[in-house]
């Protein structure tokens, strides 16, 4: 019997007043904290009579240490960082400036180089970084300001008063598998905040609560997502130059799936490579972790990695629905940043610079709110206006229809992308509609039993232990750890659907799309279909794919006990 995590009821919780609570210490949250501190310092220097305090500004970060849940390719477009910390290049941990880029279209046996690099994929002037190290550095800057970062604390619930967000409840600690307090039980805190800023990353769990409560996505295109699977490799020297960037399209995906790979050359013969698979593929048997393993077997990639060693693994979902999928980002007491809002340029596959910019704009708005003593929608709504009059909108407007163009396959996508390139992003019409990714998933009965053209993408990767890896081996390299004795944080609202319906209709795709083997159908002769759903929550790498891709939408990802999760050193 599965017992799911939820905040305990009927207990006394410590109350703590706060001016600003930022949920999530990634690039958006850290940039927000840093900018807010800068504004307060400037203000205090000029107004000796009305000093603002930073003491009650808090960042909640569920990872045990700053940056340990941060994963990205990553290429950094420095635009926003130059605004936040001019001259940051001198001290930030940057691996290399991009010096060379190439785009290939792969078929199973060959590769075709694009004669010119398409403009959106030109990366000269960008930097290859490890987002983990970059955020650690950003976090140390925040800590120097005197703003407190609570590492190991997750936001488990939003607190409301009518139509106003009034705070954040942190996670209960020391709760056992049956949802009972253990001897080390510590109730979550109620942080009563004037301003709550959600910077949780893709498909944030509090953001999801907020969107549901106020029906914020009404009138928006459904958000669409991709799942990025990444491996970090150490390769013999001379294989790829620091700052060399390679993108591929095509194989192993067919024309029915959206996605592509990146290969970035970092410092010290470290190569970041990964594959993003759109979570709108038709065949439920597809396994994105396997897609990366297949990709590595292409002779082009295999040669690059030969004799090398895989040192780290991770996965993350990314939002690429674009401008039309972004919900309102501010309201009474709240603002939403970065990937939680959907600030990601799907065409360039870049979101870090937008996350940082959104954090800065939110900080400016929060600062106004503190000064005025008003954090209602009247004041925080300025954030919405700031976003719309900033270069965030300029950049996203040009690619507003990009991903939707690909919903009907690769060739239609290329046609629309080309057309949009010459019409300022418009294409055939100003707004392309979209469909949620999970709605593209087909039932097994509608698909060829042998997988047809997709056969090579289906089912788990076996792995040879050198170039390719099975999922559990990959997972081991994510360094994931959780307190084992705690309730499952993957909340399945009705396991009967898994055991009785999904098993027949879709074949339990959770087992395939989860990059961490959290979901498992185990044999059970007492079940009518011979199996029941079982969870391994402590494998979870916090990518949120299950919450996104489940065709019945009955999974809600909530944060496990703070401190647990992957350990993305150098990712």
């Amino acid at each position: 019997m599965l017992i799911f995590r939820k905040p305990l009821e009927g207990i006394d919780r410590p109350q703590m007043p706060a001016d600003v609570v930022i949920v999530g210490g990634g690039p958006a949250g850290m940039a927000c904290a840093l900018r807010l501190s800068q504004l307060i310092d400037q203000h205090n220097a000029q107004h000796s009579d009305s000093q603002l305090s930073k003491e009650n500004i808090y960042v909640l970060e569920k990872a045990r240490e700053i940056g340990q849940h941060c994963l990205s390719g990553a290429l950094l477009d420095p635009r926003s960082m130059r605004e936040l910390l001019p001259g940051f290049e001198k001290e930030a941990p940057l691996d290399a400036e991009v010096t060379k880029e190439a785009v290939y279209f792969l078929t199973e046996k060959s590769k075709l180089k694009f004669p010119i690099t398409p403009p959106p994929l030109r990366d000269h002037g960008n930097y290859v970084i490890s987002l983990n190290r970059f955020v650690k550095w950003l976090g140390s800057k925040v800590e120097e300001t005197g703003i407190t970062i609570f590492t190991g604390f997750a936001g488990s619930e939003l607190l409301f008063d009518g139509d106003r967000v009034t705070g954040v409840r942190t996670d209960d600690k020391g709760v056992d598998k049956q949802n009972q307090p253990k001897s080390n039980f510590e109730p979550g805190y109620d942080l009563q905040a004037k301003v709550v800023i959600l910077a949780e990353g893709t498909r944030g769990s509090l953001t999801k609560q907020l969107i549901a409560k106020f029906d914020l996505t009404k009138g928006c295109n459904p958000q669409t997502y991709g799942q990025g699977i990444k491996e970090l490799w150490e390769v013999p020297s001379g294989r790829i130059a620091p700052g060399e960037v390679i993108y591929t399209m095509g194989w192993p995906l067919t024309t029915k799936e959206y996605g592509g790979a990146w290969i970035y050359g970092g410092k010290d013969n470290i190569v970041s490579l990964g594959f993003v698979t759109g979570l709108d593929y038709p065949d439920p048997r597809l396994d994105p972790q396997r897609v990366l393993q297949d990709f590595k077997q292409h002779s082009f990639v295999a040669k690059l990695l030969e004799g090398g060693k895989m040192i780290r693994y991770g996965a993350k979902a990314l939002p690429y629905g674009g401008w039309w999928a972004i919900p309102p980002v501010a309201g009474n007491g709240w603002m939403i940043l970065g990937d939680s809002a959907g600030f990601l340029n799907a065409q360039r596959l870049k979101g870090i610079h937008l996350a940082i910019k959104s954090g800065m704009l939110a900080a400016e708005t929060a600062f106004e709110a503190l000064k005025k003593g008003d954090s209602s929608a009247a004041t925080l709504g300025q954030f919405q206006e700031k976003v719309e009059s900033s270069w965030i909108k300029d950049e996203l407007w040009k690619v507003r229809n990009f991903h939707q163009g690909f919903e009907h396959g690769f060739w239609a996508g290329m046609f629309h992308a080309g057309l949009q390139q010459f019409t300022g992003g418009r294409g055939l019409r100003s707004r392309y509609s979209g469909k949620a990714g999970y709605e593209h998933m087909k039932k097994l009965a509608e698909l060829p039993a042998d997988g047809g053209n997709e056969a090579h993408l289906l089912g788990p990767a076996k792995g040879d232990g050198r170039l390719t890896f099975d999922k559990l081996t990959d997972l081991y390299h994510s360094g994931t750890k959780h307190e084992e004795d705690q309730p499952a944080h993957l909340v399945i609202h009705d396991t009967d659907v898994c055991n009785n319906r999904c098993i027949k209709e879709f074949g339990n795709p959770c087992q395939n799309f989860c990059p961490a083997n959290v979901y498992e159908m185990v044999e059970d002769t007492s079940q009518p279909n011979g199996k029941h759903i079982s969870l391994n929550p402590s494998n979870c790498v916090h990518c949120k794919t299950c919450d996104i891709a489940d065709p019945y939408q009955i999974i809600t990802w909530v944060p496990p006990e703070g401190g647990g999760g992957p350990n993305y050193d150098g990712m």
Partner: protein
Amino acid sequence: MPDTILVIVEQREGKLNRVSWESLTAGQALAAEMGWTLEAAVVGSGVTNFASEIAAKKVVKVYAVDSPQLEPYTPDAFAAGLKQFIMAKQPKLVLMPHTYQVRDFVPKLATAMGRTAISDCIGYKKEGEKLLFTRQMFQGKLAADVSFTCDAPWFVTFQNGAFRGDKVEAGAAAAPIETVKVDIANNVIRNKPQEVFKEAKQAVDLTQAEIIVSVGRGIKEQKNIELAKQLAEALGGELAASRPICDSGWLPMDRQIGSSGQTVAPKLYLALGISGAIQHIVGMKGARTIIAINKDSEAPIFEIADYAVVGNLFDIVPPLIEEVKKAKTGA
């Protein structure tokens, strides 16, 4: 008359809890700083011998709060007895170590008196006329200074190690001892203490085992664990498991081997129906001899096994148990 600080020294089953000296050190420091009087009390039945041990320290007076009802310890009797005593003496501040016993009765005592307790403090501060107590929040990431807004007596408990028990000052002469009898009606005590016991056995320490029989998912059902147990017993070894088994509750978590369990290096490791995911391997690869039984010839466990048996464990284990028994009796 100056205000009084009362330190409640803990005794249990004829032993004085040493951590009480830490509270006494805190009391001595506070008394000096505030100019208040320091007194101490020990609670129980026939506790004057403790009182004289305390009286050797630098305190103005020691009370032995006495009643036959206070032995054995019950939270009801302690709360009732101390309430009577504290109401009569009206100290400003009551200090205690943050022990299990104190945690048990202090909320009740403070509530019964309509007062507040500030618990698990790591220190105090004097700010002007205000006395602040420091508590940890967010698992020690933040320290909060808390003060009382209610009337005295104020209850404060100190975290273990917050003050140094060995720094408690001895007195110039023994302090006077006064025995205070408290009346506790029989019907006040609703708790009935049973015999005190220690939790039966510490978690099994697999790292000390020379032989380990470990089961994985291949064991199929919970009832089949018995088979592995018989083999472990026959070999004189310990029973362990891979995560799915402990996760299903078929064996307790302290028998889990691997990255999320224990790491072992026995002389013999017998893996029954364990596929050998890397998460398990890292917990046992140091074993001197590894025997693996698995029906999947490609199971990764075979890559590190010294002896690989491809086959159904239910066919192999029962005769193996018999053979081991025979060999043992023959030897």
